[in-house]
């Protein structure tokens, strides 16, 4: 392993090693979670683990392809990739296949592809290309708007395909905007909106607004001597009223029943303990079972292929979205912590590498990669452990599925290719 990066073709081996570890560890957990009956062979393509092995081989080919292409290609062709992926998303409305309520798949004679997974790296590339363009100034509101539309377009298309989870992932690209210099107020607004939203749903819009009003009055009377900012205060208050009732309306009218239930359960909106218990049993059945499986793992876990709850198929969707519960049960606290640390290290490594870049394009793209990975990591593991409401998105490199694995492989390796070219003068 050559860590000397003066050579023109030098990968960041730390990231590659972590990537490999995640994919291999993921494969074995899929094997454990999807094995039924007597285990026969590792390459049984009728079973998910056998297929996953094929997907892994496919991603090896992808890696080889990505690395062999000239780094500049990705910057040059970012727009075309983006347009292609938007078209493929639109095409879903015509030729899409519905699985689990979401119309997110193309069916090529048994092989299904999910364009929304690929849209993620395409959008990240396009965003990097747009912001790094010399004519773009991200501090300029018009450019901010243009960049926002760039991200919102695929996100909205995916939302219409009833895949709200993936849409949320696009929201993580906010970190890219923030890093590139949009106003601090956006961050304040985002934090404010989050707090306002939770408070509205938990305590109702009226109580929330009364609380905000009191805070503002307190601020005006006791902390601010000069009354110059009176107007701002009023505007802030009107905003908060509008937003808070807007959120309440959106929760009641826009969200679907199962989404309301998930959020409601997470915020413990149901006070009646009997009803709450029955909600827990019915709505968060998956979560209950996955928590039970993780809890039963204890410190060291039950061992590979020895998880009783995994073997008994107690956790639905365990080899896809709930794969982390297998890790929890069979590898225990230590194994799960190692996995968490691997993910954290990979994301931190990517941010670190991105920050090193002089090329703005690579840095923005790297940030996009880190943000998307972070969103998946946060939402998936958070959901499986009951820390956030249930949102069905896969765990990168880990969950079963070809589209996901390939899309994440492309996402990461395009960045690693750009990174290996860091010192080259274009």
């Amino acid at each position: 392993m050559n860590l000397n990066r003066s050579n023109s073709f030098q990968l960041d081996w730390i990231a590659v090693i972590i990537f490999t570890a995640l994919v291999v560890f993921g494969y074995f957990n899929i094997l454990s979670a999807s094995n039924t009956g007597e285990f026969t062979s590792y390459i049984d393509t009728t079973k998910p683990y056998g297929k996953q092995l094929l997907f892994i081989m496919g991603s090896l080919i992808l890696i080889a392809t990505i690395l062999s292409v000239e780094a500049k290609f990705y910057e040059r062709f970012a727009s075309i990739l983006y347009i292609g992926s938007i078209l493929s998303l639109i095409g879903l409305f015509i030729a899409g296949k519905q699985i689990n309520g979401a119309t997110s798949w193309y069916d090529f004679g048994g092989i299904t592809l999910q364009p929304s997974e690929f849209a993620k790296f395409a959008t990240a590339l396009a965003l990097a290309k747009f912001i790094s363009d010399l004519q773009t100034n991200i501090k300029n509101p018009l450019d901010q708007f243009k960049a926002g539309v760039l991200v919102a377009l695929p996100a909205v298309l995916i939302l219409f395909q009833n895949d709200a989870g993936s849409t949320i992932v696009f929201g993580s690209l906010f970190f890219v905007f923030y890093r590139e210099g949009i106003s601090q107020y956006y961050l304040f607004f985002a934090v404010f909106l989050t707090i306002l939203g939770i408070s509205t749903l938990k305590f109702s819009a009226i109580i929330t607004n009364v609380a905000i009003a009191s805070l503002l009055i307190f601020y005006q009377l006791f902390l601010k001597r000069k009354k110059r900012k009176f107007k701002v205060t009023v505007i802030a208050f009107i905003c908060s009223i509008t937003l808070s009732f807007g959120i309440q309306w959106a929760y009641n009218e826009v969200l679907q029943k199962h989404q309301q239930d998930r959020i409601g359960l997470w915020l413990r909106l149901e006070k009646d303990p009997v009803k709450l218990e029955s909600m827990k049993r019915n709505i968060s059945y998956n979560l209950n079972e996955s928590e039970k499986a993780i809890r039963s793992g204890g410190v060291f876990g039950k061992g590979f292929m020895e998880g009783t709850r995994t073997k008994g198929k107690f956790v639905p969707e365990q080899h896809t979205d709930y794969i982390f519960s297998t890790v929890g049960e069979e590898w225990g606290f230590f194994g799960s912590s190692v996995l968490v640390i691997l993910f954290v290290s990979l994301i931190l490594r990517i941010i670190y590498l991105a920050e090193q870049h002089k090329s703005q394009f690579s840095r923005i793209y790297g940030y996009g990669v880190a943000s998307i990975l972070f969103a998946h990591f946060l939402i998936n593991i958070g959901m499986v452990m009951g820390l956030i409401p249930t949102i069905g998105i896969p765990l990168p490199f880990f969950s079963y599925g070809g589209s996901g694995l390939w899309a994440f492989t492309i996402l990461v390796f395009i960045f690693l290719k750009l990174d290996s070219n860091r010192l080259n003068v274009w």
Partner: protein
Amino acid sequence: MRKILLYSLVALTGVCFIGRLFYLQIYQSTAYDLNNDNAIRKVFHYPKRGYIYDRNDSLLVANQPSYDVMVIPREVKPLDTTMFCNLLKIDKPTFLKSYNRANRYSPRLPSPFLRHLSKIDYAFLSEKLRKFKGFYIQKRSVRDYQTSIGANVLGYIAEANTKDIKKDPYYNRGDLIGKQGVEISYEKILRGIKGVKYIQKDIYNRDIGSYKDGAFDTLPIPGKDIKITIDSELQAYGESLMQNKIGGIVAIEPSSGEILSLVSAPSYNPSLLVGRERSKNYTKLYLDSIHRPLIDKGLVRMHEPGSPFKLLVALTALQENVISSNTGLHCKGKYVYGKNKRTMQCHCGGGYRNLKSAISFSCNSYFAMAFRNNINKYDNSSTSMDKWSDHIKSFGLGAFLGNDLSVGKKGNIPNGNYYDNWYPDFKWGATTIISNSIGQGEVLVTPIQLANMTAAIANKGFYFTPHIIKSIDDNEINPDFKRPKKTTIDSQHYDEIIEGMLNVYKEGTASFLKVPGVEICGKTGTAENFTKVDGVRKQLTDHSIFVAFAPKHNPKIAIAVLVENGHYGARWAGRVASLMIEKHIKGEVSLKNMEKLVLDKSLEDEYLKPYSGKAFKINDQ
């Protein structure tokens, strides 16, 4: 700030996740318990329950297979219900009821459909079973009684109830556990240890293979056979003598403390509590509030001992040196005591009495005198009473015997404190509590305590704890049962008492109960007793009580007989005791007339008197 935000959020998330993992997997989770994992099914393999033999190696209790019809509702196909019901001897509504109950429990899991099929029904059914999909037969092992006697001794087994399961986690729902008699005393030895197989199951409760290839599975360990001290022939004879009477017989071998027979009357056939009719029969037995057949009268019926207690009063007085064997008394048919010249009637016939003749004729006056001297020995009645009480208790009275029988009662032997509490403002003395001298008053004993007391007298001063176990698969039994327990009375004092008891048979109250060729030492007893009829205290016909041991030299049997409401001691209890002694010592009974008299006698009328609602006479013929 802009550079740090994502860094810190990622790191923070990692920390939160590890914290959550710590909470779930270390803080909140108890150590992984295989037995509490609902992904694992435990399948038990029950070992053979140990057999029970009597002292002469005749088999009393064995096992038999019992067949339960099981059903998995989902797998049931349309069937010829008429034929099926005929085979099982049930009607259509019962069929539907059982089926629906099983279906409600779980359509996927097996449930019992009909329990305890007889061997014959099983044979017919198994031939046709292939026609009835979804039904199958599960074999279980239940008790097979080779005898119709000794239900109270042998006890019975039944499914463990919630209380049993709570008390001992070994048991699971549906497991069998000893509920009475030796089945409960030697439960752990008889039952063995069940084997367990851990089966991995899936979300639908289906078996998907053995857990870790059976690494945790265990093999069942069979229960051990036991031999009990009961002589089943003597036991059967005792039960037949006691038919139509309520009461108990306890016969002990004085030289070992082994219980030769333990009769509780009325008895029932132990086979009644096996099989399909079990619960019906049990309810019937349980609800019989007059006879209470499920209660072992020899062990738990407490009553005033009556005259046999005089033997201990005399022994205590001798030990305390307040009388001697020559002490005499002129009985005038009553004993007058206290300032108010209160009297105690005496039925001995009057005249000069020494210790020996006082025992033979059960002279109340004599023992009242002895008891009074005893209590007056020390300045403080309470101190004297404590001494007296200790002597009496050394015969195993007033406390549990510490034997291996599942039930028992302490009885009551009062001490000084007892009366101090009773009479807090009154200086009580011997005359206050004089009825204790003749075994009335506050003294309470059980028949087994009386038998043990008799054994201690027969041994001249020591006894072995009465016990029912003879051997466990040829292993040693509790060593405490082999250790003699000494009474506080010196052995030389017994001779005079034993002479007196011999005289009871020679010329005294039991002179018509002689057994040719056997020197029996006995003592009659007649205990007054009362009941409440509609809240009013009413006296009932006296309990007939008798204690005896034989032969005089090297005694082989010590016996106590209680026949409730049997009138005077020699009348029924005495006859039963004599017959039992002859049966045990000679192996056969020559007193045919006496035997016929006892067998034919029914006291049922006597027992129904308090429930008749009419006024009744007591102690009539």
